[in-house]
């Protein structure tokens, strides 16, 4: 029976105990990830986008606490013990991080690392695991997988390593792949290729959550986009709608900040003044208000909640009407 | 400036304050130092006063006769001698550590920063010195120059700097790769200035931690020298000498061994805790 929702987050909060007191990294996020879709979660550094999913997987730092609900195929993740989560991680959810060198152990051959997870749990025997590893290497676009199988990570280029990292995450056959800034550390051409790999995987039915700070990479691959700011979701919409008719001023400003090839050359980029609130800052009203060109009195007093209508949502007292003119 | 923010050391200090073992150790050390300085003043005995009234001369601890920790084989009050010994041991340790710090940091930072051949040669010197039979030289030096306190802590410092140099050199090599060192070079700063202003301050954390862990080693080394009869000369005494003398009388007069050993063990333990605490406090990842 197909689940209507693969991952369901409800009122998820993440905080960290620091010297200066508790710091809220995620302040109540409710989101759904549907099977077979690619959901992009976009936000600047410090918006909480990574912590949100690390909390779901039980991978927060020692001083981190998660509250609220996160259900994967019906099963509650928050508060689940380490043993339960360890089984889940990898088997049902794969994680690919920013720096491929961190995902790969330098002194083990690539093939060994790929097979490690499935051999560990006794799920497969060696010959089977090897075949699967080679198949996956090919599906992520690594040429000549047999040779690469026996090589060490440092013999591969950055792009190849990231592909291996994706293949590793897919070895146990997870239903969901979380890609946390997978292309940020890569060159532009390699970035395009890795995104292609993710796109192909999605076409084959893999559900993907793509976490990134760059709205630009999202356009060609995501079905829906959730924009986060200062620990909360400020807009959710289908990709096409988000790009053509953003409702939240922050989304509109982010779109304008992307350097493009079709604007007049030498033009100034439209940037947002100021910077996001620091983690320990106390927030009053809408966190984006200090930087928002359209902020009104109401915006500084109360924080807007996420309003849903017509399959999209925005958290703004005065959302932009359809069509944002520069 | 409106927005004063706590410096790096202030934050580290606070972190250290939260480490209970380290704080307890610091307090214990402080008490020990105070007692070791106040003891000889307060007590009615001096370190070389022989109490002829005792029979035998070596008598166990007794409150009645004022010898709180007993006396040694020559009838001298052990409490006062342990205090004096502690002072000497700590002094030697601190001075020797300071010497090894100065030489080691300068050597290691320079080698690590300059890199290449210079680094190679500088560290070969360290390797060679490391390999030398050190005790041999100390003995020769002692025979030639006599057993002065100065000589002892120079000798110990002369060995202690080797490991410090290696550690600092490793840190410097890593720091050299950082962009801010390149930035300093593009400012036209001479190497000397870059090492002093940018390399050394960034290795201080490691150096301080290592220094607190060196002090116990130095004390032990000095004790070893004393045990061999090469340490401080009479009437001065050190914990090492006291331990050496006490060990000879272990069966007949156990208190002669216990007192200085306990002091020594306490110092070493406390310094280790403080060292650990400092390392955690100064760990940049915890900022």
């Amino acid at each position: 029976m197909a689940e209507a929702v693969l991952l369901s987050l409800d009122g998820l909060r993440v905080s960290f105990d620091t010297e200066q007191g508790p710091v809220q990294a995620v302040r109540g996020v409710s989101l759904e990830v549907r099977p077979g879709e690619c959901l992009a979660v976009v936000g600047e550094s410090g918006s909480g986008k990574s912590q949100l999913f690390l909390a779901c997987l039980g991978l927060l730092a020692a001083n981190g606490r998660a509250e609220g609900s996160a259900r994967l195929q019906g099963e509650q993740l928050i508060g689940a013990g380490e043993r339960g989560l360890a089984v889940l991680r990898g088997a049902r959810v794969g994680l690919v991080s920013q720096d491929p060198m961190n995902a790969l152990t330098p002194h083990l051959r690539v093939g060994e690392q790929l097979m490690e997870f499935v051999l560990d749990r006794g799920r497969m025997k060696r010959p089977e695991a090897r075949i699967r590893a080679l198949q996956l290497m090919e599906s992520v676009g690594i040429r000549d997988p047999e040779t690469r199988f026996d090589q060490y990570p440092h013999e591969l280029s950055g792009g190849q390593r990231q592909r291996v990292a994706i293949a590793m995450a897919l070895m146990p056959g997870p239903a969901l792949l979380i890609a946390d800034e997978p292309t940020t550390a890569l060159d532009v051409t390699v970035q395009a290729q890795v995104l292609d790999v993710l796109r192909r995987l999605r076409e084959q039915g893999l559900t993907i959550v793509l976490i990134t700070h760059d709205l630009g990479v999202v356009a060609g691959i995501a079905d829906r986009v959730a924009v986060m700011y200062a620990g909360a979701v400020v807009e959710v919409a289908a990709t096409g709608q988000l790009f053509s008719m953003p409702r939240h001023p922050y989304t509109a400003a982010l779109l304008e900040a992307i350097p493009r090839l079709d604007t007049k050359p030498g033009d100034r980029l439209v940037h947002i003044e100021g910077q996001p609130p620091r983690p320990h800052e106390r927030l009053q009203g809408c966190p984006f208000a200090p930087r928002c060109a359209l902020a009104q009195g109401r915006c500084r007093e109360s924080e807007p909640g996420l309003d849903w209508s017509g399959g999209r949502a925005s958290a703004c007292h005065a959302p932009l009407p359809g069509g944002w003119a520069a | 400036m409106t927005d004063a923010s706590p410096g790096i050391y202030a934050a580290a200090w606070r972190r250290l304050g939260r480490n209970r073992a380290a704080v307890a150790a610091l307090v214990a050390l402080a008490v020990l130092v105070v007692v070791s300085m106040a003891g000889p003043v307060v007590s009615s005995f001096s370190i070389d006063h022989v109490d002829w009234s005792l029979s035998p001369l070596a008598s166990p601890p007794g409150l009645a006769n004022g010898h709180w920790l007993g006396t040694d084989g020559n009838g001298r009050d052990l409490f006062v001698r342990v205090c004096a010994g502690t002072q000497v041991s700590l002094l030697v340790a601190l001075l020797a550590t300071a010497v090894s710090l100065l030489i080691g940091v300068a050597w290691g930072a320079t080698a690590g920063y300059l890199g290449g051949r210079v680094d190679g040669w500088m560290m070969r010197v360290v390797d060679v010195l490391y390999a030398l039979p050190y005790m041999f030289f100390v003995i020769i030096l002692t025979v030639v120059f006599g057993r002065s306190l100065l000589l002892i802590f120079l000798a110990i410092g002369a060995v202690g700097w080797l490991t410090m140099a290696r550690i600092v050199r490793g840190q410097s090599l890593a720091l050299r790769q950082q962009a801010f060192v390149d930035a300093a070079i593009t400012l036209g700063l001479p190497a000397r200035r870059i090492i002093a202003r940018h390399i050394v301050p960034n290795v201080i954390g490691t150096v301080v931690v290592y220094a607190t862990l060196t002090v116990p080693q130095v004390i032990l080394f000095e004790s070893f020298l004393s045990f061999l009869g090469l340490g401080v000369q009479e009437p001065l005494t050190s914990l090492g000498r006291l331990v050496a003398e006490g060990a000879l009388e272990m069966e007949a007069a156990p208190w002669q061994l216990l007192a200085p050993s306990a002091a020594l063990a306490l110092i070493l333990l406390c310094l280790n805790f403080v060292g650990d605490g400092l390392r955690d406090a100064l760990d940049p990842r915890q900022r």
Partner: protein
Amino acid sequence: MSAPLLEIRGLRVEYAGGGFLRSRRDAVHALRGVDIELREGRSLGVVGESGCGKSTLARVVLGLVAPTAGEVRWDGWTVDPSDRGRMRKMRRELQVVFQDPFGSLDPRMTAGASVAEALEALEGVTDTATGRSRVAAAFDAVGLDHGLAPRYPHELSGGQCQRVAIARATVVRPRLLICDEAVSALDVSVQAQIVNLLADLSRQQGIGLLFISHNLAVVRHLCDEVAVLYLGRVVERAPRDALFAAPRHPYTRALLAAVPETDPRVASRRAAVELAEEGSALSRPSAGCSFAPRCPHAVDACFSQPPGLEPSGQGSAVACHRWRELVSVA
């Protein structure tokens, strides 16, 4: 016409493989003969990916790395590190902003101290009232609040650190600022702020820019001219408009195609230009064009003869045997 401010001719940089047991074959050819020219007040974008040698180029110009061959001329003078006086003068006029905002500032120095150090080292201005006011002015010029001066780098955001780095580089009013991937480590929104800041500074203070990046879209906003590097060689060089309107070299086209498309309707249908796996600076220089193994248009001649950089009109130059035929290919 006056001499260019910065002139680089035939620059080669090889990192020796060397060592007792390793052979010379392992030498890394970071730069294999590069010519660059930059006039006063102009901005040049140097574009390429990992291994193309762009960072090495910056390091050579700054005097951090010695070239194996070729020369670098600053304002007509052949750069000679042993000439202390002229080096000092050059350092005042040529400054740099590095990629890692946190790594380029000494973690044990406050923001204000880092900027003040530059002032002291390059102009001898010590901590006097003049010095302090110039540091304050530098902070203003980069849009940083004075209250941030006593902060340490770890207490600042990436964007703020990068502004401090820019303040440090511009407090002495250089004639040329080298930006080595200066915005690559920043979020897109912060990147936009810094790009605009650099554009403003360049315009207001007449500072030239040597902007090194792997992102053509950013370069488009900042630079008058662009040079594309691949595996240590310049493969195309052109004024900005010409390069973006009609890129000639297949690698330039691949780079342009890789810039993320922000119109979802177009993006989902566009596939990345299919390039074979990345080359490596470790490889021996091949007999022919270094891009041939990955080039979708390579023919036999490309593998046997290295193309030189030939002028292709309108102040442009391209290193490709087939550039004339490929112009018609979209």
